[in-house]
């Protein structure tokens, strides 16, 4: 059967991916450059018995997204920088209450309302540390329109599997650009659904600490349990028991730490014999790939490590890169965020240089090529 090819915008592909993954609830507050995600979900969800609600602001949107998921529906919200800031408190709530949900952040220039129609990658660190307290974070960074669809599906899968919020970070360029993509047929991509309890409602413990990830019962099915942002015991009620607090705080991090290989995903090009390494995500990684190809044509041994999961940070892949390269170049649309993580992992084994741009324009291949040639 011929695959269905369609010219699609990144944000459209994101909505298509969410629907493919089985998303049935969207709560949001529209904001450029992510608005198309909300627009499409508002049209499509009612057709399949789902619900779309535009809330009064981003704080309420995040809270409603968590509520939708607790009621058993795969839930989504989409935003950009200013909205992402507002969602942070409730995002932390989803981490500690272990509620699966997906948050799309189509990054634009900041700080504050910044540059709505310009691309940026300045929320990389906010995705990791935006909400207070030690908390688990999974953040994905697709760079191509097809990848946005596929990675949105993966975001739902990881979220359902690990009972944790998953953030998808892309930027205005890939969110708004269009490319021909293949729409997957049902069954082409894996779709994961959360584990539900097989015990009686009386026996159910929403935070059963004999398990790394306890099954999650949907509200409305007779399983009544308490949900709180306070440190809680196995039954969900607040606790002052320090042993229990410690155990729970470590367990929610361990969910991620024990499954790094399942969560991390990288795309590598020309890395086998690379002497000059590039590390980039999103639209910037597309510039980097262009420059690597141009360098290879001149016989320069450059290669690209392009993480599709930025959090947890791809320590293993960066460490291997630091072993074989004399320099790692990190182009990013901010004033230095990922570059410091790369330096931490490289730990002096090679030089690490950033290329940073915050004027609302993309990092052009010429800028990267110039640095590659300097090191060749």
């Amino acid at each position, binding site marked *: 059967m011929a695959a269905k090819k*369609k010219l699609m915008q990144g944000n459209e592909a994101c909505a298509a991916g969410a629907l493919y993954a089985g998303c049935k609830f969207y709560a949001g507050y529209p904001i450029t450059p992510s608005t198309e995600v909300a627009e499409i979900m508002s049209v499509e969800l009612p057709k399949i018995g789902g619900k779309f609600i535009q809330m009064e602001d981003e704080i309420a949107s995040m809270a409603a997204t968590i509520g939708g998921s607790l009621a058993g529906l795969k839930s989504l919200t989409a935003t950009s920088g200013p909205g992402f800031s507002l969602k942070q408190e409730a995002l932390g709530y989803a981490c500690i209450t272990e509620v699966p949900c997906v948050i799309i952040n189509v990054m634009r220039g900041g700080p504050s309302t910044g540059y709505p129609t310009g691309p940026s990658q300045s929320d990389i660190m906010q995705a990791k540390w935006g909400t207070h307290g030690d908390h688990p974070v999974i953040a994905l960074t697709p760079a191509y329109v097809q990848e946005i669809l596929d990675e949105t599906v993966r975001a739902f899968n990881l979220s359902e599997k690990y009972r944790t919020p998953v953030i998808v970070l892309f930027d205005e360029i890939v969110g708004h*650009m269009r490319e021909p993509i293949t729409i997957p047929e049902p069954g082409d991509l894996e779709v994961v659904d959360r584990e539900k309890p097989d015990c009686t409602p009386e026996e159910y413990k929403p935070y059963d600490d004999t398990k790394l990830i306890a099954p999650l019962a949907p509200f409305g099915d007779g399983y009544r349990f308490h949900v709180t942002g306070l440190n809680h015991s196995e039954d969900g009620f607040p606790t002052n028991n320090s042993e229990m607090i410690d155990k729970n705080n470590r367990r929610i991090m361990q969910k991620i730490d024990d499954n790094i290989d399942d969560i991390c995903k990288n795309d590598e090009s020309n890395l086998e014999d690379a002497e000059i390494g590039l590390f980039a995500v999103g639209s910037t990684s597309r*510039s980097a790939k262009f420059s690597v190809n141009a360098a290879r044509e001149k016989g320069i041994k450059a290669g690209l490590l392009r993480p599709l999961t930025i959090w947890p940070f791809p320590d293993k892949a960066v460490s291997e890169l630091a072993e074989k390269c004399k320099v790692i170049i990190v182009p990013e649309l901010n004033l230095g965020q990922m570059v410091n993580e790369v330096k931490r992992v490289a730990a002096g084994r090679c030089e690490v240089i950033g290329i940073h741009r915050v004027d609302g324009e993309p990092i052009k291949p010429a800028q990267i090529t110039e640095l590659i040639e300097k090191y060749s």
Partner: protein
Amino acid sequence: MIERYEIRFSGSGGQGMILAGIIMAEAASIYGTKNAAQSQSYGPESRGGASRAEVIIADAGIDIDYPKATSIDCMLALTQTACTSYYSDIKKDGILLIDEDEVTDIPEGDFKVVKYPILRAAREEIGKSIVGNIISLGMITELTGIVTREEIEQAVLSRVPKPFLELNKSALALGFEKAAELKKAL
């Protein structure tokens, strides 16, 4: 083999530059057999302000990594501001298509300039100034040959509401016809 063919549509917000870019990308990649990437740059205003869309076209199987223009094969300018701001990326022997009523200060360079009163023709010959972008698509198709007349026509018609099919067909046909005449002088 086409590894990278770059087109830039520029004008002011509301002139349909982004739509023109989408239609060109669809003509190449959905109705044609090539690969395409379309991107845009616009300000916070919905009308006015500089607006531009870019389409990168390559043969099927060739990845388009950097989605923005680097060395332009063909550029359209419907306003003086857009022309002045964006012409410098046109490559040697590339084509600059301008609205000759709007762009009076014509930049000089190693590229070919094609002049036509696009917006006036839309108003006077077709009866709607809004089809300026469709006339332009017809002209670009004829001038560059990067997509066929059939491919661009299918792409235009699939994007247009039914009551406006004939209007857009005429606009496209006018673009083909005028560009065919002007091409002879290049």
